[in-house]
């Protein structure tokens, strides 16, 4: 036999994928989450379309609503699918078969978990892209808030890790449904335990701010979105994921000793990070701008107001709004114009009406006081600070509903701030305010209570006016009402002339009912 030298094989060299990548690719192709994606997306869309996308196009509202909807909609399908994948080896009776393969058990498990997480993230990112894409087209001002998106994204690996661990450790036909429903139960109903802004339970990824206010249109519009709570939530979720995955590789027969040491280290580190995050969440407090501030994570630069160029109306007294609320300007202008015509140019009347941020104050339990900080009129020339009803938590208002509240509450409050009307004012002040409203053809629907509106367990607050002075007016049938009717019937020039001359005295309470023309 003659030995011959075989020539070196020439030709294209195909690079085989690394075993880990090949395993991941196989797991991606044979993963239950792939088939669960339409379910998760449909559930998200079912709530998001009606709830999140039905809110006014403000980034703060849409981002917070998206976080809540995504976490709740994805919880059951993702955790259930992960549990189903975790119990696969037991279901198919291949545990012994795969235990003798060259791949260590942690690697196999992590590949399955990673594939499940990947599909969950793909589905979530698709939903996120749609919600943010639609919002970007509709929003008049501002940009995407990424922290809520990151929190919801960080929730998915934690859900898959918990579900996968349950399926691996306790395989059985009841495991996947139990995990799916437990995930929903814990996420949707654990918030019952939140009491006030200093609650450890705020670590739940469904919490986007002060609980029971919910996504609030007045938050993160005048001031930057505070990432304090989202940072703590992401820390908790990543720590939880690491701890669960690390613990999953701890049981005996999991491979090399170094691998076990690494698993112990990862589990410990994960628990420490998650515990720290919970402790940090417990130190949170509701700040004046309606967001949860955590002192250890707080950046003082976030407290500075955002710069913006207001959009103003062409009324007798310009009404200037934050550009994020630009879509409400036509309704605001139409509702307030008749009343502003009555007071424009009078001594003490505002030269401009400017939308201002609401101030938040933690009340007992989960209640939150919301109102204006300081006086409603300040500066020279005087500027009246306006709180739009849409800045307050509660059901989203249509343009017609907003206009109705402005006409019946905010407008009369603006006139009252000029006449000095209020609970302690004179009969003449009540009568003049009523007369000016009659002249503007406005009939207030109700008398607002003098207390600061409160949101909390009792539900959303009533629409608030400009704050400060409140309209009281003259009751129908009273002598003041008759005087008001007489005063309103005067020619506009006569009425204005009298007011220009006597408004200061009227405000000081030196004009009696009988002195009115």
């Amino acid at each position: 036999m003659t030995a011959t030298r075989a020539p070196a094989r020439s030709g294209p060299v195909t690079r085989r994928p690394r075993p880990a990548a090949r395993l991941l690719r196989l797991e991606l192709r044979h993963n239950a989450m792939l088939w669960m994606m339409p379910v998760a997306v449909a559930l998200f869309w079912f709530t998001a379309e009606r709830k999140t996308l039905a809110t006014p196009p403000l980034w703060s509202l849409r981002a917070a609503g998206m976080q809540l909807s995504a976490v709740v909609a994805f919880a059951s399908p993702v955790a259930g699918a992960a549990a189903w994948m975790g119990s696969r080896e037991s279901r198919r009776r291949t545990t012994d078969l795969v235990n003798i393969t060259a791949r260590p058990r942690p690697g196999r498990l992590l590949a399955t978990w990673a594939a499940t997480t990947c599909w969950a993230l793909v589905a979530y990112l698709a939903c996120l892209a749609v919600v943010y894409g639609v919002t970007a087209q509709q929003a008049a001002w501002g940009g995407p808030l990424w922290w809520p998106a990151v929190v919801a994204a960080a929730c998915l690996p934690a859900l898959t890790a918990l579900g996968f661990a349950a399926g691996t450790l306790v395989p059985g036909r009841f495991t996947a449904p139990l995990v799916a429903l437990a995930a929903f139960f814990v996420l949707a109903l654990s918030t019952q335990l939140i009491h006030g802004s200093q609650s450890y339970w705020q670590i739940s990824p469904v919490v986007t701010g002060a609980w029971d206010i919910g996504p609030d249109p007045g938050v993160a519009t005048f001031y930057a979105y505070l990432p304090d709570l989202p940072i703590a939530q992401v820390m908790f979720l990543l720590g939880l994921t690491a701890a669960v995955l690390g613990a999953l590789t701890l049981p005996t027969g999991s491979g090399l000793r170094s691998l076990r040491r690494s698993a112990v280290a990862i589990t410990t580190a994960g628990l420490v990070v998650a515990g720290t995050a919970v402790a940090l969440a417990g130190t949170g407090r509701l700040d004046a701008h309606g967001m949860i501030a955590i002192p250890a994570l707080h950046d003082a630069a976030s407290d500075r107001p955002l710069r913006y160029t207001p959009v103003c109306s062409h009324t007798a007294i310009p009404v200037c709004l934050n550009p994020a609320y630009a879509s409400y300007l036509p309704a605001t202008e139409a509702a307030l114009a008749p009343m502003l015509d009555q007071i424009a140019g009078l001594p003490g009347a505002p030269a401009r009406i400017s939308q201002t941020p609401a101030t938040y104050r933690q009340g007992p339990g989960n209640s939150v006081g919301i109102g204006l900080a300081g006086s409603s009129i300040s500066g020279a020339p005087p500027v009246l600070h306006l709180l739009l009803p849409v800045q307050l938590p509660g059901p989203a208002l249509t343009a017609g509903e907003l206009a109705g509240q402005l006409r019946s509450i905010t407008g009369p409050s603006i006139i009252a701030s000029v006449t000095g009307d209020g609970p302690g004012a004179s009969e003449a002040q009540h009568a003049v305010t009523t007369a000016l409203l009659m002249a503007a053809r406005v009939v207030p629907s109700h008398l607002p209570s003098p207390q600061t509106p409160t949101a909390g367990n009792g539900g959303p607050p009533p629409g608030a006016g400009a704050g400060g002075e409140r309209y009281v007016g003259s009751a129908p049938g009273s002598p003041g009402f008759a005087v008001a009717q007489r005063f309103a019937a005067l020619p506009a020039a006569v009425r204005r002339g009298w007011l220009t001359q006597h408004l200061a005295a009227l405000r000081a309470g030196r004009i009696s009912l009988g002195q009115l023309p």
Partner: protein
Amino acid sequence: MTTGEARAVPAVAAGPGAPRRTAPSRAGVRLARLYATSRRVPAAVAAIAACALGLRLALTGHWDTYGALQLPLVFETAAAAAITATAASPLGEPERVTGRWLPYLRLAATLALTAVAIGALAAAGTGTHLAGGTLDVARNLAGITGIGLLCAATISGGLAWIGPAAFLIPGAYALYTQWHHPALTTPWLWPGRPPHDLGAAICAGLVFATGVAVITARGARDLPDEQA
């Protein structure tokens, strides 16, 4: 040996060591017991009891409006998922071919478990403020069980939980919209309707009847290489 010869063989006289024919009633009981064991019916009953206990414990706590309304629905869904989990067969095709009593066993097991679940959850709510009351429990549980049974017949016995788990979210959202308008008023989302709503009861009953009929006639779908 020909067929005729085989037929001519006399029956073996029953002796002390020969297998005895069991009485029909005892055989029926044994068959039901074997069926229940193979479908993990005892575990399902334990799960239902755990749901009832969990609901009872939860109802002793303080819940706001959101929680009080949605809490029973979660436990009803969990009980329904436990019932549908018994639809999967560990024996597959051989049992399907040879077991002529299977449809009756499936029907009996499903109806019995549903009745047990309704009774257990209603009993758990006795003396407490159970939102919706017993009628709500019966309607929701029956309807969600029907969804799970339909999933068992169409997707797989092991994955039948997808239906109840997925329905929980629109169901809870329908409850949420009762005070956050616009309300979802379709009777197909029966958890959001009042307990005496006829349309919702008809829809839930229809889904339950369809699910029971399909699972009785066809049984759960088996996935290849999967052990239930």
